[in-house]
């Protein structure tokens, strides 16, 4: 592929890479900088980057403020983890069924599943609130897990279905010849080799659940508040504590970054197979 690479060509690529890194990380770097600067320094022109303006006060205040970031992180972790786990546990078999087992009207079912994640949140917020309230589920992590499940499940089913369809048939055929039931085939043969795609779907579901704001706002009160709510707490009406909000955002993005770094290769492979076999 790199047979005749002129100096100009290589320089061009390097330039493009520099632009890419700047574009992708620039705003994030600014976020981090803002979180360790005093607001005073940020409102200077140009921003006052002298050593005296740097402070960790924003981070300290974030944890002592009424926004309860610490508890929000725990809530978000629990909600996102369970949503993801449930989405995989329910979605993988469904995806396998739609991919390999004979289902009547599979096309329509697939369409309905896909459509399930296209409702604007405004539409379903009020009826969901009414139902949840009557069931006493308001302000519980369980409610959030269920609500997030409703729009993560379709994506998981869809990604995994594509992957399962791309698996070579030989493995499953061999298993059947050996007398394995579809369930055994699924659990013992298909799942183990699908781990990359399972991870990819899991990451997507996790990030979506971690970052969701509107339902978290409507469905929680004090105990089940999640990270996006804690972050939004710093943007009030009469005053916005920008530095603290950026600090809260930096803290909240850290677990996601960690996860993406650890799983960067599996994510890539998982999406490859999931998307394209449609």
């Amino acid at each position, binding site marked *: 592929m790199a047979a005749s690479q002129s100096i100009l060509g290589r320089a061009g690529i390097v330039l493009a890479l520099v632009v890419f890194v700047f574009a992708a990380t620039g705003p994030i770097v600014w*976020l981090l900088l803002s979180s360790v600067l005093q607001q005073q320094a940020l409102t200077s022109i140009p921003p006052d980057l002298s050593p005296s303006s740097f402070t960790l006060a924003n981070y300290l205040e974030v944890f002592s403020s009424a926004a309860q970031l610490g508890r929000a992180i725990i809530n978000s972790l629990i909600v996102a983890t369970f949503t993801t786990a449930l989405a995989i546990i329910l979605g993988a078999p469904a995806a396998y069924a739609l991919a390999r087992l004979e289902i009547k009207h599979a096309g329509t079912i697939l369409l309905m599943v896909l459509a399930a994640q296209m409702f604007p949140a405004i539409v379903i917020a009020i009826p969901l609130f009414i139902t949840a309230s009557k069931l006493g589920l308001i302000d519980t992590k369980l409610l959030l897990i269920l609500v997030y499940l409703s729009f993560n499940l379709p994506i998981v089913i869809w990604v995994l279905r594509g992957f399962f369809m791309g698996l070579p048939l030989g493995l499953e055929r061999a298993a059947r010849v050996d007398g394995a039931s579809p369930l055994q085939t699924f659990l013992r043969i298909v799942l183990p080799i699908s781990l990359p795609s399972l991870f990819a779907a899991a990451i997507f579901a996790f990030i979506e659940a971690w970052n969701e704001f509107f339902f978290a706002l409507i469905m929680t009160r004090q105990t089940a508040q999640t990270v996006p709510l804690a972050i939004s707490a710093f943007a009030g009406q009469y005053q916005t504590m920008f530095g603290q909000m950026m600090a809260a955002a930096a803290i909240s993005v850290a677990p996601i970054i960690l996860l993406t770094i650890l799983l960067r290769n599996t994510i890539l492979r998982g999406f490859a197979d999931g998307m394209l076999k449609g």
Partner: protein
Amino acid sequence: MAEATRALPLGTGHRTRHARVAPLFLAPALIVLALLLAYPVLYSIWLSLTDASLSAGQLDTPFSGLDNYQRLIGDKSVLAALLNTLYFTVVEVIGVVVLGLLTALLLNHPMARWSGFRVFLLLPWAIAPVANAVLWKWIYHSNYGILNSLLLQLGLIDHNVTWLGDPFRALNMVLLVDIWKSTPFIAILFLAALQNIPKTLYRAARVDGASTFEAFRFITLPSLNTAIAIAVILQTIWSLRVFDLIFVLTKGGPADGTVVMNFLAYRVTFNFLKFGYGAALANIIFLASLLLSIIYVRLMNPGAPRGR
């Protein structure tokens, strides 16, 4: 779709077993989805057929038939929102797909092997939308936003620009942020597709004397057909749902310049408390998304029989 690749030449016993077991695999997920969404969806459809308003103690819902939808058609603000949505969606889809493709091509280059680049790519996607919106509000600030600072220092502008001060310019600035946030997912999609193209094709092309551009046009692009189709449809559906960004950056302003359908539905429902009309607006958005997803499914399987 499934049917084409599922025609396994096996005995009938196997098929019967499948038919029995399949519902067990599928049922849990479908039941969960139905339980969670059936009632809200039906409720919202019904709500759009009423003149719902808050009154002593609860929501009053006198039936009004298709009144809301009729009003929708004649409402100037709906027309304006539709135009904004059309512009926003078309530009965002084109922007994300083109940028995503360029980024994928770049990261697929042998010089960009380092996995750190992929982590950078994922950063915009990972950041919480609420924090992202406030961050960009600060970046766009006309007085001490870093964007004006940088452009001034680079000499590209000679005085501060009020990025969010003009309706059309504000719409474009919001677009910029959302494109920035949405490109990573699509870029990864393309990157994965690119890595699936056999290298032998390129080698053969080079042997035949093809230029880089010709290789791109006759090998790369056709292989990416499916991926591009998926990207277009997915991004369209997601563009229709933009909300957090507009809420924080512009609240629909200036002068309603950044009001898109989803934001209008929110404003009507939660600011004006016109729950029926808002539900009608939201249902329009849903219908548009549904139509697009039908197109998507069809695109993936041209000629496959609908259902069975």
